[in-house]
């Protein structure tokens, strides 16, 4: 075969392979730059009691699943029952409440309204959280590169982020993204 025919054919095959791979790639997926990094420093109040403050040290000595959520977020509500089952099986889950409403740029909702909304939602769908950190101005969320809710981080006992997932957690996601860390590092935890 002459080269004038091989070259276009080769280019076509190359392009076909590239586009074929593109069919099965998730355009929303990107590697988190946070794996292996320590949780950034913060000082934020409890959602229910503003007197209680949390710092990064709250993640020491446990494996913690930090779940970014909000009652305004529908997908977060969908994953609540599954997260509740996880917490019942022994996984420590802490909520990072991603405030969207009391921001001056959006329609405002007062803190008591948010608290009532959260209590109501957790009674209805299950409460997987040991406590909720109130990220009123999304400072910690910003430092964690959160793009929206829900997102989840698995933090190891040294306060280092070992897994980051964007989107809801279901059984498939738990088994593939988070469970491997538990199996290798804490054999007597979880199952």
């Amino acid at each position: 075969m002459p080269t004038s025919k091989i070259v276009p054919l080769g280019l076509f095959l190359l392009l076909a392979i590239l586009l074929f791979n593109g069919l099965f790639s998730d355009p929303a997926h990107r590697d988190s730059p946070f794996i292996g990094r320590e949780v950034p420093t913060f000082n934020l109040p409890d959602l229910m009691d503003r007197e209680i403050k949390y710092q990064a040290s709250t993640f020491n000595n446990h494996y913690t699943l930090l779940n970014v959520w909000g009652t305004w977020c529908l997908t977060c509500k969908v994953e609540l029952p599954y997260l509740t089952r996880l917490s019942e099986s022994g996984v420590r889950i802490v909520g990072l409440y991603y405030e969207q409403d009391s921001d001056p740029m959006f329609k405002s909702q007062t803190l008591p309204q948010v608290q009532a909304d959260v209590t109501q939602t957790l009674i209805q769908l299950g409460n997987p959280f040991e406590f909720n950190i109130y990220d009123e101005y999304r400072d910690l969320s910003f430092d964690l590169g959160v793009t929206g809710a829900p997102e989840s981080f698995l933090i190891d006992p040294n306060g280092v982020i070992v897994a980051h997932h964007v989107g809801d957690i279901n059984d498939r996601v738990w088994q593939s993204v988070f469970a491997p860390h538990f199996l290798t590092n804490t054999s007597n935890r979880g199952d």
Partner: protein
Amino acid sequence: MFRLLLMFFAFSVLTSFHVLAVEERYPLQTKQQQVWFQELTADLRCPKCQNQNIADSNATVSIDMKRKVHALLLEGKSKQEIVGYMKQRYGDFVYYQPPVNQTTIFLWLIPCLALIIAIWLFFSRRGEKVQSEIVDENVDHIDELLLSMDDDSTHQDNGDQGK
């Protein structure tokens, strides 16, 4: 003429509203900071959206990023420092200028390779012209054949007319 001037004036006022609104919401001290703000919000990509810069996006995360850019500029940070700050949190994805590394090197290599291949094809095709001369001879021959066929057909036509 006066009408035209008026229209032009109205158009320029209307189109400058956007810039004025931005300056009002994100006030900055120096002209340099204002220029950087415009450039940064145009070149930073909304991480929640598929392909939109943060200037055009009203997603919560984009508004947060715009305010952060504003706050960092007020702190006296440079453009590069702010880009670094954002990249640290949202990865290389967040900046519209990808860095040169193992995966992105092809973005620069492919156009160069395409050009080299195109030049090579161009010159190798030129060499083939020698072959085409032979083809031309055949074409001349075909022309003759066609002409003779034409003659035949006109004869036939005449014949038909004769009938």
